[in-house]
Structures are given as C-alpha cells and as structure tokens.
C-alpha cells in the first residue's frame, strides 16, 4: 500500500512560484527525508502535506486518500515541530492528550493512550510537569509523544532536532530511527542536515530551487548523484568538484586537471557523450576516492597514482584529510590515519577514477553512464 503519493504538486504565492512539478511516491512504512538548503521549498512541501498551506497545483494523497481539500485534522497525520510547539499552560499529559480530547475520545481511553506513549518514550515521570520545567531533550520527547499518541497514518517532522545541542541531536537521531523501526509508521522528515538524511532515511528526496533534484535510497544519492548539486550537497566533507578538460583518444577518455604548474591526465574508464570531446567538464570525486593508502583488496588498475603537494592537513581524529590544489580548487583527499604529512610535503595519492562522476559544467547534469 502507498504511504504518501504526491502528483505534479506545485505552490505559488501570488505569481511567485516556490515549488513545481513535485512527484513523490512512497510505500507505507518508509522514512522519507526531504533535504535541501534553506529556501529550497522543503518546509513548504511539508506544510502542504500537513494541510497548513494550500496546494496550488496537483494532488496529494495519504494512504490512498486524496487530501487536497481536507483540514489538517482530517488528514490523519501528526506533526513534530522545530520549536516543539508545546502548549505552555498545559501539563505534559495535557499536551499529549489534547488532540484526543478535541476528538472527543473518552477520558479512560485517553489516559491509557497517554500512559502507553509515555512508557514508549520513557517520559512517564514527567507527565505532571509543565513544558517550562523540561530540558530540551525532554521537550523533544513530549513533542513526539503528542504525535505518537494519535496513531496517525503519517508522521511529519519539521526539522525537529535543530534546536538541540550536538550530542543530544545524535542521541535523538538514533531514538527516532528506533521508534520508526518499532512502530513501522510512514514518516516524512524535513531537514537541512544531510547527515540526518543519510543516517535516518530509507528514501531521500533532495530539493533545491523548488525542484526535486534527485530521489532515491541514501546509497543511490551518495554513490550515484544525479547532478552536481546533489553531489556537492550530500556528504561531509563534500564531493570535490573541479574543472577538467575531457579528451577522447584511441585508449578511451582522458580528463585533464591541473596541479600547480603541472597537469594530470586521469584515464577515465567510463563513456561520455562524444560532443564533450575537448571541452571543459566538471569532475566530481569524493575525498575517499583520492587516497594516500592504496586499498589492499583493490584491483591493480582501479586507481591512478600521482604525486601531489599538500597545502594543508586536517586531522579529525579517526581520519586525516589533506587539501591539495586541483584545477584551482582546494580539493580534499584522505590521508593515512595518523599521517605525519605536513603542509608542503609531497605525497603519493591514488585517484579512484572509475568511481568519479562527470557533470556538464553549466547545467550540472550527469554525463557519464
């Protein structure tokens, strides 16, 4: 059964278009993350699903029912907000049961439902407190409790973790993921944080400028970005996007980049459209595709090896990254763990050319296939 289906949806404010031609289909029980930079339209889309904003064009259905003309309360959804939006004058129990009370659920049933949710979220001891007496993490749980208690068809999360400190954010991330596993509910989750998207989603939808850039599993999005925007947005540190000149010869394609005064020509094993011969393209390589340590089990010709000068090293604990100048870009590469290499040192780097992506320099469209 489908959990959520969006067909050709769009949003206009007057004559200003903020979303266009949005098509999304997810199954029941999926965890969809809408991710994109601020202003990309992801929150607007979520509000349209919730019924808090009118749907200017197209159709949205939840669990098979078209909801375009339904009030938020009639859509069988629950929502968790960035500011938690807890009612400050009600107790935690009052907050959780408010939606049920509005729906005239009898008191005994309400109490039972609250108790069950409180148990699930481990907030039973907080039920009599007011929101102002809770910590950030506790408020977050109450906000989730308020959504869970209604047992809706669809959960909507609007950047729910962005008000928490870094440590708590990681904790709650795991918690929400566990909760999703346990309840098996369909979730739509909005965030600008691509790490949240990668770690939590079963399906990611990358938005930018009111358009869907790519939809897919986290794996697909990361390893097979549809365009330069997705490639640059997802991943931390992000993919290196550098200018390269493409040339076709008898041995196949070659991509030439510059390193200081030298130029490096990487043999490219995949195919590109012929029209790009002798043209500048954008070459995308993730830091872990430019490495100091030759992977042990890799085939002998999988990597192209050359010597580069380090501009900077950045130890982050588990990994050490280095910056090298490639076609004028401070490209990030991955050094050996605990590498002693320092600024100005020469290191031998291995380029995993076969995994590299090539994009059109103007449109950003993916070229290799």
């Amino acid at each position, binding site marked *: 059964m489908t959990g959520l289906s969006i067909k050709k949806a769009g949003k206009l404010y007057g004559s200003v278009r903020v979303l266009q031609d949005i098509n999304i289909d997810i199954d029941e029980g999926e965890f969809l993350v809408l991710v994109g930079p601020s202003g990309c339209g992801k929150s607007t889309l979520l*509000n349209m699903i*919730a*019924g*808090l904003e009118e749907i200017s064009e197209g159709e949205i259905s939840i669990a098979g029912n078209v909801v375009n003309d339904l*009030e*938020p*309360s*009639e859509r069988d*959804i*629950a*929502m968790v*907000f*960035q*500011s*938690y*939006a*807890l*009612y*400050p*004058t*009600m107790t935690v129990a009052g907050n959780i049961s*408010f*939606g049920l009370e*509005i*729906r005239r659920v009898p008191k005994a049933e309400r109490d039972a439902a609250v108790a069950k949710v409180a148990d699930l979220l481990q907030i039973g001891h907080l039920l009599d407190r007011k929101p102002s007496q809770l910590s950030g993490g506790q408020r977050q749980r109450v906000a989730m409790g*308020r959504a869970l208690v209604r047992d809706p068809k669809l959960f909507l999360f*609007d950047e729910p973790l962005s008000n928490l400190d870094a440590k708590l954010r990681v904790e709650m991330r795991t918690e929400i993921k566990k909760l999703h596993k346990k309840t098996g509910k369909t979730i739509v989750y909005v965030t600008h944080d691509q790490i949240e998207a990668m770690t939590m989603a079963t399906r990611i939808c990358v938005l930018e400028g009111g358009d869907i850039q790519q939809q897919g599993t986290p794996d697909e999005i990361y390893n097979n970005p549809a365009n330069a925007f997705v490639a640059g947005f997802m991943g931390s540190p992000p993919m290196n996007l550098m200018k390269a000149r493409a040339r076709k010869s008898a041995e196949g394609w070659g991509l030439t980049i510059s390193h200081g005064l030298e130029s490096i020509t990487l043999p490219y094993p995949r195919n590109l459209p012929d029209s790009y011969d002798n043209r500048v393209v954008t070459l995308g390589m993730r830091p872990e595709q430019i490495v100091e340590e030759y992977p042990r089990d890799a085939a002998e010709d999988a990597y192209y090896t050359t010597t580069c000068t380090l501009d900077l090293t950045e130890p982050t604990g588990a990994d050490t990254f280095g910056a090298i100048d490639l076609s004028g870009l401070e490209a990030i590469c991955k050094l050996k763990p605990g590498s002693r290499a320092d600024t100005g040192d020469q290191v031998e780097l291995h380029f995993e050319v076969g995994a590299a992506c090539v994009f059109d320099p103007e449109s950003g469209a993916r070229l290799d296939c």
Partner: protein
Amino acid sequence: MLKRYLPQIVITPGTLLVLAGVYGFIAFTAAISFTDSKILPSYNFVGLRNYENLFKLKAWDIAVSNLIIYSLLYIVICCALGLLLAILIDQKIRAESAFRSIYLYPMALSFIVTGTAWKWFLDPGIGLESVMHQFGWESFQFSWIKDREFALYTIVIAAVWQTVGFAMALFLAGLRGIDSEMLKAARVDGANTFQVYWRIIIPQLGYTFVSVMVILVFNAIRTYDLIVVMTNGGPGRATWLPSVFMYQYTFTRNQMGIGAASAIMMLALIAVFVIPYFWWELKSQGKQK
C-alpha cells in the same frame, strides 16, 4: 575623585528632584493628614482623627462605593472588549493598521476633549435621545447623564471609549508573541478557532492580563478630568470618586487635613495593586536572566 564618582554625580539632579518632589511630598501630605490643617497647613497634630472623620463622611462613602462600581465595570469591559478587538484584528484582516489606528486614536486625546464630546452626545436635549426622536423613535429615552442612578455609567462609557484601544494594543502584542508553530500544532490536533483561543492562546495571556489590569486600576483610581468636564461630580454627588473628593475637600471646602487623608488612601489603594505587580515582575525577570 570627581571622575570616580561621576556617574553618581550626574544622576544626582534627577534623583534629588524625584526624591523631594515625589517621596518628600508624599511624606508631607502624610504629615498634613495627621494635623488639623484647614485652608492652610497647620502643624497641630491630631493623630488619626482625620482618618476617623473621613470614614464617617457620607461623601467619602459614596466616592469609594462609586469607585468600586466604576473601576469594576471599567476594567471588565476594557479587558473583554480590548481582547475581542485584538482577536478581531489578529484574523489576518485587510487594512489592519487602519483599524488599529482608529481603535487607538482616543488615547491621544485629552480627557477634557473626550468628555466634551460625550457630554453633548449623551445630553438628552441635543444628543442621542433627540436624534432618535428625529428618526421617529419618539419613546426613546437616554438621559443617564442627568440621572443620579445612571450618571456614573456614562463616565464608564466615555472612559472605556478612550482607553479600550490601549488594552487592545497590549493584548494584540500578547497574541502576536505566541509561537506560530504552536498554532499549527493546534490545527493538526484538530482544534477549531474557538478552541485555539480558549484553550491555548488565552491561557498564555496571563502576563498580559495582569499588566493590563494593573494599568487600568491605576487609571480608574486617577480618573478626574473626565468627571469634571462631564458631570462635575453630579448630579448631586452621583459621580464623586475619591479624586473628586480629594480636590473638593482640599481646595473648595478648605478641609486640607481630610483632603490629605483621602489622598493617602488613594495612594495606598494603588500601592496594593502596583507593589505586588512590581515584585512579581522583577522576580520573573530575574528568573529569565
């Protein structure tokens, strides 16, 4: 030395003025209230006799019971109507600022001007009553302003008209201060507009309610100009308030001792409301920081 104490030196003139002109004068008035001052201050102390006499006076009795009726009506109506106006304005309406300005402009007027307008508007001879008669409603009667029973209510009408915009402005600020995500949450929870206001928004306006009421109490106790221009305390003493009593006894009847005692009573009455309010506000501010 001079440089070290410069802040204290700079603030001294203003501080001394207030210390003498407010607190010194309050002490002076308090002292007078314990003397047998008549037309001029005397320093012949008579203990609490002025207060005893004050409480025996019929006029004071009337002034105080008028004040209770007046301030209760004034505060309740201002709060209810002010909140209603604020809620109406808060409905994402067109020409919002025009409506807000119209509801608030009487605050810019002098009570003397407001009183002049309402005095003649409520005058049975040329005002509302005569207009209704002209429209053919011969039996319409509205002569409250000349009626001992009802004159006080005309003061309430004019006072509400003048200050309800202020209550509206404060309530509107309170309404606008509420997190918009919370209102979205309430909609997802299925609450209708009435439930959103009644269950979620109004309970959060507690602070605003207290502020509005303290200021309205203060306004009510101070009301003087409006009465002078509309009824001058009459008919009879039907619209006497403690403020009128104080002025009459001090400056017209030359009973300065009793006048001073009544002023002290007014101050005490205001203090009963204002001091807890300050205390509460300073405490809640301390908590925030």
